């Protein structure tokens, strides 16, 4: 008897379990398992999040006093350039690609991404881009000091005259990350279009998958334009062509079109998966179906379409003709419609539910409230006359940090906490998680809210020194910034200790309704023993509606407790 009971777990264990910390070495290999790659993305990008965050601390340290006294002006300019570049290209993009990588195949009932090897190649380009970007601190002349927009002619000014300079390395790093993103996008789109499990029609596909699809479509049509602009910029900088160099007859404004044609939609590339996360997390922790699921899902695609025609709102002051200003003002404001649909849907989802304030739920709710605020200030910025005053001021900085930290980073944390039990098979510490949320939420308001009045008063962005009248709000913002820095400590503590020591979570600790919760935690290499056959739309809370035709993991999961509403919270026995 004892023999048999010992053997059974042994047999189950025969497949290596990605996500368990015991065989950590595989995270340093060229693994083609989408789950390993997902974790590789998330951990790598988190490292860069800390680097970019450290730069932000120095920036806020400089801005706590009006004078440029902590660091040299060139160092300040290099740091804000690198802060922006790292936070976008090495943190937000890759971490979301990582989450998508981990979750999409599980959510659509596939065994892996469509092109596993391509997937691994895309990942390994990220550390290469990161190393290249960091190396620019070591070259003479230092890193790029032209802001993350790299607008010419400033980006074409090369004080050292060296061929290998910070700006060249910057362009190469961004290009590598761009190639990685395009390959990732091809992979995601193919996976989502062709590998959904039998029965998973479009309107049975989770909202997160819709959002990832919408975001990756933007990568496909937008990134090549930036690549084109970057190639031309690189040629101007190295071999002396004249595309954007005014002293050689070029047109620097055209670069802005190339840049923003991608880089504004890029915001939606980042915010759409965040929306998807909210749509997944809220129903689970409010125990209610996602309100208006079909409309929320479809509105993601609507955002993809509209976002292709909004880019000039970054260029109202760039000598653009009035018809352009007016046209892009209307299109920009139209984005509020699909975004509004989502926000209203989320509020209605929460309304009348059975809400539990778990850490992921807190982050999702906080993220939505921040997004609401950022969305409203976004409409302000879309209006030409208002933008003519606040353009390139701290109002804009405050607005997009509310989007990027307030909404997107919050969504990323919500996602990490929400799927932590699935990814690692263990529970995180709720207390530390809530502490992390409290610090992050308060820190966000303290740091980024004061930037709005600063902008209205007329403080330009990217200044290393400023007039005395701005000191008051800047001190508050700096203190808030340091609080944000502190807030990552409980997060790191929580993640590391829970992964190693955390309580076993069981397969479906949230009693959630979705394919990813139908498999073991962490999932086996093949995800499912049998490919699940989906028979109903997602989010069937309160309905006793089976999601799949039969249990896709008959051997490892005792009973299909998630097929019919599971009635107990108790974690699975060891």
């Amino acid at each position, binding site marked *: 008897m004892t023999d048999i009971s010992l053997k059974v777990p042994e047999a189950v264990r025969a497949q290596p379990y990605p996500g368990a910390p015991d065989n950590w070495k595989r995270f340093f290999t060229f693994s083609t398992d989408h789950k390993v790659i997902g974790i590789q993305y998330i951990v790598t990008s988190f490292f860069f999040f800390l680097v970019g965050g450290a730069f932000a601390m120095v920036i806020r340290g400089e801005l706590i006093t009006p004078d440029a006294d902590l660091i040299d002006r060139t160092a300040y300019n290099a740091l804000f350039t690198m802060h922006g570049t790292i936070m976008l290209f090495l943190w937000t993009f890759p971490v979301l690609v990582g989450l998508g990588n981990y979750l999409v195949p599980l959510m659509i009932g596939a065994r892996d991404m469509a092109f596993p090897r391509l997937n691994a190649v895309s990942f390994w380009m990220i550390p290469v881009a990161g190393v290249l970007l960091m190396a620019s601190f070591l070259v003479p*002349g230092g890193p790029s000091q032209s802001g993350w927009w790299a607008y010419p002619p400033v980006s074409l000014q090369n004080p050292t005259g060296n061929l290998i300079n910070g700006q060249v390395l910057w362009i190469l790093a961004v290009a590598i990350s761009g190639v990685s993103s395009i390959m990732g996008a091809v992979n995601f789109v193919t996976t989502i279009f062709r590998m959904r499990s039998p029965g998973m029609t479009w309107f049975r596909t989770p909202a997160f998958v819709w959002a990832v699809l919408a975001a990756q479509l933007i990568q496909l049509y937008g990134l090549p334009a930036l690549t084109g602009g970057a190639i031309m910029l690189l040629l101007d900088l190295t071999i002396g062509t004249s595309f954007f160099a005014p002293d050689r007859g070029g047109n620097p404004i055209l670069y802005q079109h190339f840049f923003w044609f991608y880089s504004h939609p890029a915001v939606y590339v980042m915010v759409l998966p965040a929306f998807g996360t909210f749509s997944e997390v809220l129903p689970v922790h409010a125990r209610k179906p996602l309100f208006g699921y079909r409309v929320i899902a479809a509105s993601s695609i609507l955002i993809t379409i509209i976002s292709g025609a909004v880019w000039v709102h970054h260029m109202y002051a760039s000598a653009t003709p009035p018809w352009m200003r007016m046209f892009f003002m209307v299109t920009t404001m139209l984005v509020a419609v699909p975004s509004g649909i989502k926000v209203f849907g989320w509020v209605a989802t929460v309304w009348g539910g059975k809400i539990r304030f778990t850490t992921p739920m807190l982050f999702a709710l906080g993220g939505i409230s921040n997004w609401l605020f950022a969305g409203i200030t976004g409409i302000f910025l879309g209006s030409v006359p208002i933008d003519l005053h606040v353009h390139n001021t701290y109002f804009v900085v405050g607005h997009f940090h509310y989007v990027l930290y307030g909404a997107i980073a919050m969504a990323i944390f919500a996602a990490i906490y929400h799927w932590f039990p699935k990814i690692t098979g263990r529970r995180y510490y709720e207390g530390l998680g809530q502490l992390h949320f409290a610090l992050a939420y308060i820190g966000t308001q303290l740091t980024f809210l004061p930037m709005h009045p600063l902008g209205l008063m007329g403080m330009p962005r990217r200044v290393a020194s400023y007039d005395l009248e701005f000191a008051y709000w800047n001190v508050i913002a700096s203190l808030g910034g340091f609080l944000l820095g502190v807030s990552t400590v409980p997060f790191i503590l929580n993640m590391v200790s829970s992964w190693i020591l955390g309580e076993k979570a069981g397969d479906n600790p949230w009693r959630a309704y979705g394919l990813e919760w139908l498999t073991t935690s962490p999932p086996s290499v093949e995800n499912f023993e049998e490919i699940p056959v989906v028979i109903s739309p997602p989010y069937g809370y309160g309905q006793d509606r089976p999601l799949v035709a039969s249990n896709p993991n008959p051997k490892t999961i005792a009973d299909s407790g998630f097929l019919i509403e599971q009635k107990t919270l108790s974690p699975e026995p060891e």
Partner: protein
Amino acid sequence: MKLRAIITLTVYGILAAIASLWMAKQSYSWFPPEASAESKLIDDLFALFTGLGTFIYLGVIGPFFYSLIFHRAAKYDLSDGPAIEGNTWLEVIWTAVPLVLVISLALASYRTYNKMAIRGPMDLVHLHLPQLMETAYALPLDDTPQLQIQNALETAPVEHIDVTARQWAWIFRYPEQNVTSTELHLPVNRRARFTLHSEDVLHGFYIPAFRVEQYVVPNQDIDFEVTPIKTGTYRLRDSMYSGTYFAANQTDAVVQPVEEYRQWLAAAAAQTPTPAFNQAASEYARGQAQGGRAKENTAIKGWATIPPAPPPVTNYASKQVSNK
């Protein structure tokens, strides 16, 4: 039950409306003084946005927080909420209302933009007095700014000023008197037309008290108009990042009564041009003396920089204010 809900909603709606009105009124205090006719137009528009934005924010966040407080699951309650998957009418309403709202906001912005009569860089239609045609259907809120612009245009010819931006200095040239200055002087209640040039990179011509900004683009002469209506000294800032000493590229804009302005011009014309103080150049020189820093008294050393252009040689120089 239904009645109670309706009353609660109505009361909340009224409270939210009052709060929004209050915020809209408050919004005027968030800005620098209204030194140009255009700034009044923009502040009105901003107040409109603030009021509506606050109302939307409260309208969403109120029910949201209500729900978070009152719809929490009891400690051992493992049941699910009601299986409501959507409501077509609600969804139609909350698609249509924002649509109507943003279109009207866009329309309001368009009107304000027209009333400002800013000459866009490639815009020849707006040359003069476009607001005369606009008055017929202009917002009835407050016509004074428009009238002020109109009066300024009718009473005196437009004041021409050439503006040159470079790394990192502003030079203002009054072509009729052939006066150059590093400080911008403007007559009050006169329409001023700037012709913006840049010698090197992109700059941003931005006077927060005037509420309008415009990039200065190399190889392009960009015309740009405002109507100062309040005397005083305001900051003029470079708003488009222009390299190492970007933050130091600031000066003052002085709006004076017409008489004083004339006197100033005459006095400046009598001066022989001398090199003016330049923050960037002086920092650079001091830094070079101390081992090639961009600034001499910082804790952490930086990298090589593009050297600033030599200090501008002008008839009149702004008082040497150490730049914060």
